[in-house]
């Protein structure tokens, strides 16, 4: 069975080779001339256009490729520029956040320092004094 399959494959290989074999043929004819083979005829203009198309194909495709490349480069350039701008401004905003918070903390520390300086010894003394005074005062008023 396998040998049969191999035979079929080899035969089809040869058939394919025959189907693709051979170079194309062409001939130049005067008007009303007969072609010595089955053909698709082009007039002089169409033939000239085909030849020209072939000649300029590489140049055109190179130009198109260059254009597409530049366009992609510009697109990604814009994306990169936008990302850089966002990065720069995010850095600025970060600095603003940190800076203002530091300033705020510094101010709050100053306020606490001032309050501490004034309060600690005096508050203890005044609390004791207030306690005594309220005690005496209450006693005095009650006696009256």
């Amino acid at each position: 069975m396998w040998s049969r399959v191999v035979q079929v494959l080899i035969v089809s290989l040869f058939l394919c080779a025959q189907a693709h074999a051979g170079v194309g043929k062409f001939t130049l004819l005067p008007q009303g001339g007969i072609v010595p083979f089955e053909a698709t005829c082009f007039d002089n203009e169409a033939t000239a256009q085909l030849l020209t198309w072939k000649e300029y194909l590489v140049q055109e495709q190179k130009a198109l490729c260059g254009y597409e490349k530049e366009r992609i480069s510009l697109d990604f350039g814009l994306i990169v520029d936008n990302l850089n701008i966002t990065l720069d401004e995010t850095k600025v905003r970060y600095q603003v956040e940190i800076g203002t918070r530091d300033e705020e903390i510094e101010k709050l520390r100053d306020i606490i320092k001032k309050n501490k300086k004034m309060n600690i010894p005096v508050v203890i003394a005044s609390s004791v004094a207030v306690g005594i005074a309220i005690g005496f005062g209450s006693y005095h008023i009650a006696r009256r």
Partner: protein
Amino acid sequence: MKVALGFLGNYWKEIALAVLLFVVSFFWWQDHKGLVNAYDASIESYETRIKELRESYQRETERKEAALEEFKEKVYLLEAQYQGYKEEIDRLKEDRVEDLIVLRRDNPDQLILEIEAKFGFEHVE
């Protein structure tokens, strides 16, 4: 003087109470002032932050708009350049087509050679 001392001697407790109330009030006022200052510092900090953040976002938008404008300009130039090149190629192709038509009439052998060279086809008489 004696009257004052007598008054102090008689009412020293009331005076002491008033002085102490004043001292307590003063400290209370100091604490309150400290709190208000802290609150003001926070407000000032937030206001500065909001102002600078707004400026930053505004600047970011402006810079992005400028980048977009620059991009549009570059794309316009590139497209114009490519369009110009295509038009130039089209003109050259038209000239070449005319040349080949003339060649077909005047020198068919040369045309045969060109077709053979370009397409690799075999010429048949």
